[in-house]
């Protein structure tokens, strides 16, 4: 019953794959997937831009409030689109990994010498690409419609860099939800909950102009306010080191927490011996 006269081929040359090499392979796949789903890119930009268009015209009179930092509500609200884009990244990253689990692709990867950090890093590559496309698009459209960018050309690069950091930070939160639930619909269900953070922030007004005390307190506690204010500082004020540092700190904290949670969720999900 043994192989008998079977022809055993010469062994294939193989190398031990390091984490970075694996990240490269998985990042390439993640980017290809993202590029081949233009509908995902477009829809993640249309809603924030729609909200921008409505608010820029409907709330324009808000700039008349004493102490309002700019006379362009379009410029003021443009910062929010970047944050909304990042929340769409959360859903995209979570749904991608959940679909992999549902389709069995996750098992296929588990059967290779896959390292956990490589999976997380590779998945976030697609999120990063989406972040670059969104941020560039939001900025270009905002400027085309008359928004200001007080920090100039270098500020544009800083804004896109911050958007990328925020995208992968919130993307890692999405990855955690996707790994925990293993269900793309469940990820989608969690999406509106993330918007609560957006709506209870300084999205529509500077925190010091929010009249309701409780809302002002919630917006001050809400870390999303500081990310929006970091974007806003580049658009409205120029270079504000404190606002940028606070926004970056929030993003890095979310990234560290998100990646840690995603790593733990991955360990639970990967039952392989």
């Amino acid at each position: 019953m043994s192989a008998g006269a079977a022809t055993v081929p010469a062994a294939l040359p193989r190398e031990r794959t390091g984490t970075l090499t694996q990240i490269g392979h998985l990042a390439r796949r993640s980017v290809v997937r993202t590029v081949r789903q233009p509908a995902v890119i477009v829809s993640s930009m249309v809603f924030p831009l729609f909200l921008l268009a409505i608010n820029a015209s409907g709330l324009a009179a808000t700039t008349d409030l004493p102490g309002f930092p700019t006379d362009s509500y379009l410029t003021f609200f443009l910062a929010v689109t970047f944050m909304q884009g990042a929340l769409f990244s959360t859903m995209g990253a979570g749904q991608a990994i959940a679909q992999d689990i549902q389709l069995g692709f996750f098992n296929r990867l588990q059967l290779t010498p896959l390292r956990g950090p490589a999976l997380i890093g590779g998945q976030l590559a697609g999120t990063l690409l989406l972040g670059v496309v969104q941020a560039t698009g939001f900025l270009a459209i905002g400027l085309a419609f008359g928004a200001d960018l007080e920090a100039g050309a270098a500020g544009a690069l800083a804004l896109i860099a911050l958007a990328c950091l925020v995208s992968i930070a919130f993307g890692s939160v999405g990855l955690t939800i996707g790994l925990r639930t293993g269900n793309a619909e469940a990820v989608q269900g969690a999406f509106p909950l993330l918007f609560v953070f957006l709506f209870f922030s300084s999205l529509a007004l500077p925190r010091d102009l929010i009249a309701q005390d409780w809302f002002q307190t919630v917006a001050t506690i809400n870390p999303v306010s500081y990310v929006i204010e970091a974007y806003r500082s580049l658009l409205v004020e120029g270079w504000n080191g404190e606002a940028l540092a606070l926004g970056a700190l929030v993003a890095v904290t979310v990234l560290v927490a998100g990646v840690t949670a995603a790593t733990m969720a991955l360990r639970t999900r990967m039952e392989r011996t």
Partner: protein
Amino acid sequence: MRDAHQNGIEVEGLVREFKKGPRAVDGIDLEVEPGEIYGFLGPNGAGKSTTVHMLTTLLPPTAGTARVAGHDVVRDGPAVRDAIGVALQEAALDPFLTAREHMRLQAGMHGLPRSEAERRGDQLIDRVGLSDAADRKVGGYSGGMKRRLDLALALVHEPRLLFLDEPTTGLDVQSRTALWDEVTRLAHQHGVTVFLTTQYLEEADALAQRVAIIDTGKIVAQGTPDSLKAEIGRPTVEAVPAEIAQRDAMRDVLGRFGTDTAAAPGAVAVRLDDGTEELAEVVRALDAAQIRVANLEIHAPTLDDVFLAKTGKRLEGAGEGTESEAAAGRQPTGELEAVGA
């Protein structure tokens, strides 16, 4: 047993319990020889896929031991994964990638250098007949094409053992035959050990040198298909009366030669007590009783009969897709069917 350690599978008392669930696998023992095609046969929910998941290191066993390619599945997971290729029940493909991109990814993750990955990928894509579709997104592939690509991906690192979990479920006859040919070629020409789960009896019969039948987590029979059929021994005669009104009379006559067994609608079947020697006598008895016969067939024991004898149930999908049985007008077996139901 040196080869068995390198290429075989040894399982003792393997158990898998799920929280708040039954024992999906309940203490199975089996041994698969190197280069052998081993059929693991059972209905849906019998424990086939859970067994495959444990043997391929995707699921830790609750108890028992299993060695695959000489490595313990619990302690040496990476070494097991390095030696095996796996095509699980659903073709696990990314609908947005092409076949060539899948190959590149899989080969890269297994550590094949870029040039070797390209060569190996092209070779396997060609072997499974997907060269023309290699640069198309697999989301547009048919079920058969996906299965073939899945098999090719399982082979990319030249595994010594291949696990195929219901590889032909849902495939048309042509795709199924092509996959059978490839599996046979791998085992016979390259000495690859194949562990094949299936719910199709004819698949196990056609491919496997040895078969284990699993039901509700336990192995109820194990051996070569011929030896298992020989255990059952007795052939079945099935007859259809020309006039339906004579069906009861036909049942009385045939009942004198054996025990009643499941038959197609309108037919009567008995398992003969004394084998095919009685066939002439059966025809004479029907003639003497003036029963006109529209069709009369003798069936050698099948693995379905083995399954029925060992479990008291018929196997879901038994005989599905076999032209000979369809032509003979046999009852297609659907859900698990209790004896006599």
